Structure formats: structure tokens, C-alpha cells
């Protein structure tokens, strides 16, 4: 059940750590759920530094562990959140979308459902549009 807050705020989130480097991504995910449950808006999550590892489609953790890319994909689909992966951070670490790999003359298709690859302008724009900008990791 969603509570009705007295006023609503627009949140933008940045995730900087990989799923297995720290719990920053998990905390960001749970923070977003809490923010949404309070009736606020989360319009964009920007994945930067090692945070881009959350977007790898073919990560296959053991069954009893959390599969982060799928969690984010479901969150984006359910709440219409824009999941943006920084292009330069992704390329450095070998994460290429199908379109991007074509442009680079490579064969790859790593980007999980619901994520898109774009530039740092999307991060700066998010900080300008948001009432609250929170960085994890």
C-alpha cells in the first residue's frame, strides 16, 4: 500500500559500486523501494564507475543469491524508472549493448532489459531535475 505524503519529491540516484564489491547497489535498490512506498518519484538511476556491473545481462549467480540485473529490470518495468549506464564507464569494463558493439566492430550484447547506455549528460541533467540526488558507493 502506498502512503500519501504531504508533498512529493523527485529523486535521482547514482550507483557506483558493483554487486560484489559492496552492498551499495543493494542499499540503493532498497532505498528506491522505500522512496516509492512513500509516494515520491524516482525518475532515473545512473550507473557509474564499477556500478555498471549491475547491468550485465549474462551474470549468472548461484540460485540462492540475488541476481541484481534482473532485480533492476523488474524495478524499471514496474515503476517506469530510467536506468542509465554511462557509456565510457561501460566500454572501459567490457559492457557493450548490441548496437554499441556493432559500432565498435565487436560481437556482444551485454545490456540487461530496462537499461540503456548514454552519456554523463544524463547524470548532470538528473542532478538538475531532481529535488534530491543520492549517491551510493
Amino acid at each position, binding site marked *: 500500500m502506498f502512503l500519501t505524503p504531504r508533498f512529493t519529491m523527485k529523486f535521482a540516484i547514482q550507483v557506483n559500486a558493483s554487486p560484489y564489491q559492496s552492498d551499495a547497489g543493494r542499499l540503493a535498490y532498497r532505498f528506491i523501494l522505500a522512496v516509492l512506498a512513500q509516494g515520491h518519484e524516482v525518475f532515473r538511476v545512473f550507473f557509474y*564507475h564499477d556500478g555498471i556491473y549491475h547491468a550485465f545481462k549474462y551474470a549468472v549467480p548461484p540460485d540462492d543469491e540475488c541476481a541484481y540485473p534482473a532485480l533492476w529490470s523488474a524495478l524499471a518495468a514496474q515503476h517506469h524508472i530510467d536506468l542509465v549506464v554511462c557509456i565510457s564507464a561501460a566500454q572501459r569494463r567490457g559492457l557493450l549493448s548490441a548496437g554499441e558493439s556493432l559500432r565498435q566492430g565487436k560481437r556482444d550484447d551485454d545490456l540487461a532489459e530496462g537499461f540503456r547506455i548514454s*552519456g*554523463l549528460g544524463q*547524470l*548532470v541533467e538528473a*542532478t538538475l531535475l531532481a529535488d534530491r540526488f543520492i*549517491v551510493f558507493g
Partner: protein
Amino acid sequence: MKSYLFVLRKPLHSGACVQEMLDIILTAAAFDQPVSLLLLDDAVFHLKQGQQPAGIGMRDTAAMFKVLELYDVKAVYIEAESLHERGLVVQDLFLPVRPVGRAGIAALIATFDVVFAG
């Protein structure tokens, strides 16, 4: 318009972190937002003169700090104690900086709209 502060704490060549922070700094500046930097702890070494990173096969990040002035970066703050504890003085640095005492750091950070910590 919002004012931005980028807080750097890590030394040179510690992974891609600083390089990637510089990329955000230049992007924010390219959006015509007022951008300032604060160097704490080992990050003060970024501005030390006489770096020769080619010798260890690393990128010349000092050159990237030097272009900050061209991007209208408003101020580079540096924590005076961080500098002193590492045996450095402002004359060792290749950019003009504004030293701030440790006791004044929290108040300085509070004056900005958006803070990036790295």
C-alpha cells in the same frame, strides 16, 4: 542552475575513479553550472608539480586538472591539514588553490547544492 562541489580523496592512479570523476566535472562545467573542487587526504597529490606518469605507463591526469581553468571551474579548495601532513605547501602545486582548514570543511560543503564524493 545549481552549484556543484566535487570532493576528491584518493591519490593519483588509484583505478579509474579520479579519471571518471574528472569526466563528470567537465560535463557539469559544459552544462554551464558553477563547479568547484575540494581536495582532501591523498587527493592533494593530484596537483603536485613535476609528475612523470609516462614512466609507469599511466595517463597524465595532471594535464586534465590543468584544463579545468579553461572550463571556468570556479575554485579549487584544498584542505590545509591534508597538504601539511604530506609535507607539501601550496608552492608545490601547479594550480592556484584556496586552502581551507579542517574545521571549516563541513561549512564549506554545506554551501553547495550538489555534492559528489569520490
